């Protein structure tokens, strides 16, 4: 596959030994910038995603919202979430957030994934699922602070946005970016996007009166490679539950990387123990049953 050739791998899930070729060359860290303040929820990005990734049609049902479906799905990786929010001054906001994989610098899915090579983080920041290695355990689902990986019951694999790693590997921007008619989506290096986002946030603060406008790039997971400009960066939860301080469950960090291996060593002590026991103490053999004592021989009688 092309992207494997052109994208430098940085982290691989469940992989023995060091990541092959890590650190050989430095790819630029890429980033998608979503300006939630100019998104009009037109869903052109949703269509572009479905078309580029050849995702099969899925019947949907009306669910009291403009949102195409409640959450992203295994065959729907890019979903604009609509949330109505009434501000303190009584004015209404209709917050639209393009939901997709955030491509975390410290990906919870990858941490949780036990399968070798099923989740890969490239040096450019893209976190990609390789379904051929996926074992369908769905731990990534619980490891993700953004509820992104989705299970396909038919193939028993998990899928999510790849940030169009195939396109990025070819030097292109993701499909959603090129589709955006209002230009609220941008793609470039993390540095550039961060700067662009900050400039826009400043404009929002200075000109548009959103005093809490800011950039969402949560530090708690080392930042993400999809960042948002929000009207109210202090309350990202308003945007259909964007977590303020996303975190990876203890289970997949300290437990999985430290305590679990220690535990395994502990368990194998049982084996060591029994070996030692056998060697130093030896087996406990069955004792032949002694027949009931015979009547006492006459005193002084010598047996020998």
């Amino acid at each position, binding site marked *: 596959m092309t992207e494997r050739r*052109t994208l430098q791998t940085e982290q691989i899930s469940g992989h023995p030994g060091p990541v092959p070729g890590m650190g050989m060359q430095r790819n630029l860290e890429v980033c998608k910038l979503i300006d939630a303040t100019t998104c009009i929820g037109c869903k052109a990005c949703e269509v*572009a995603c479905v078309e580029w990734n050849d995702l099969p049609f899925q019947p949907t049902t009306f669910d009291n919202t403009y949102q195409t479906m409640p959450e992203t799905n295994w065959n729907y990786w890019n979903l604009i979430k609509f949330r109505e929010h009434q501000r303190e001054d009584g004015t209404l906001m209709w917050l639209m957030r393009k939901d997709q994989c955030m491509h975390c610098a410290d990906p919870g899915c990858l941490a949780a994934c036990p399968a070798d090579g099923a989740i890969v983080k490239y040096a450019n920041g893209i976190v990609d699922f390789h379904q051929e290695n996926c074992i369908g355990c769905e731990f990534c689902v619980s490891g993700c602070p953004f509820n992104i990986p989705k299970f396909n019951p038919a193939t028993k694999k998990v899928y999510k946005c790849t940030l169009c790693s195939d*396109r990025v590997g070819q030097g292109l*921007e993701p499909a959603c970016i090129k*589709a955006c008619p209002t230009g609220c989506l941008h793609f470039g290096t993390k540095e550039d996007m961060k700067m662009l986002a900050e400039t826009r946030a400043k404009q929002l603060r200075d000109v548009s009166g959103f005093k809490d406008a800011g950039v969402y790039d949560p530090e708690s997971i080392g930042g993400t490679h999809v960042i948002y400009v929000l009207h109210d960066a202090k309350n990202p939860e308003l945007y259909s539950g964007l977590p303020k301080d996303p975190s990876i469950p203890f289970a997949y960090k300290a437990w999985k990387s430290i305590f679990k291996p220690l535990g395994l060593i502990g368990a194998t002590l049982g084996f060591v123990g029994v070996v030692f026991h056998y060697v130093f103490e030896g087996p406990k053999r069955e004792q032949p049953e002694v027949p009931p004592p015979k009547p006492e021989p006459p005193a002084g009688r010598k047996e020998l």
Partner: protein
Amino acid sequence: MNNGRDMTRPDWEKRIRRARELAAQYPAAAEVLGFYGEIAAFQREIFVAAAAENLHADPMRPLGEQLVRPAALGRFPALVELVEKKGPAGLAQAARELRQETPDEWRALLIKNSQPNGSDLTHRFFARACLQPMAEYLAFDSKVQFSGYSGPLCPVCGDKPQLSVLRPEGDGGKRSLVCSCCATEWDFRRILCPNCAEEDHGKLPRFSAEDFPHVRVEACETCKRYLKSVDLTTNGLAVPVVDEIAAAPLDLWAAEHGYQKIELNLMGL
């Protein structure tokens, strides 16, 4: 909008690296690409020298007349030597002959062939190899404003285009042409023949082959000319001038089907 030169800023390293990559990917073109890589490395020196000497073009005179300068001419012997050593048979032979000539004759050769329609094909190769980087530098340095220009000839030096490029614009690919002389890249509309201005979409077929997903032949049935286009919306890693060379089989196919290229590339393809 084609506002700045950043997208066309010459990056010789990239060209050389890409030639190496493509040679591995397309073995059929390995010889051509290998030689191109050598030439590009040579050209880089002239470009760097021109930059170091802080040369400028006189905006009042045609660029083509201002190319033969010491920075280029002085490196001509090196080029001859390089071609003799690494070039294909025909060029190597020509190089051996050129080695015998005097610097004045070289100068004359360069001047004669720095204009379009230069006579001898091999001589034209030597002139282009030597003068292109100078032209490229001077064009880059000239800061000629051509945003909004959409004609068929190079807005800087007036030469013919040698290939076309599709760059991402929204959902589509915006076309630009690359000058055969100074490698300036300027916007040019889609569905329009750069040679005869044919606009009838039925007469402007685009031929492509699976071997080269990002390169296609943009032909015109009216004038029977064509250019190849390198589609950066399909492959953003492509370096247009190099990828165009790698897709040489498309040129052969086009030739076989009666199409003539508007301007051959440096490798004569």
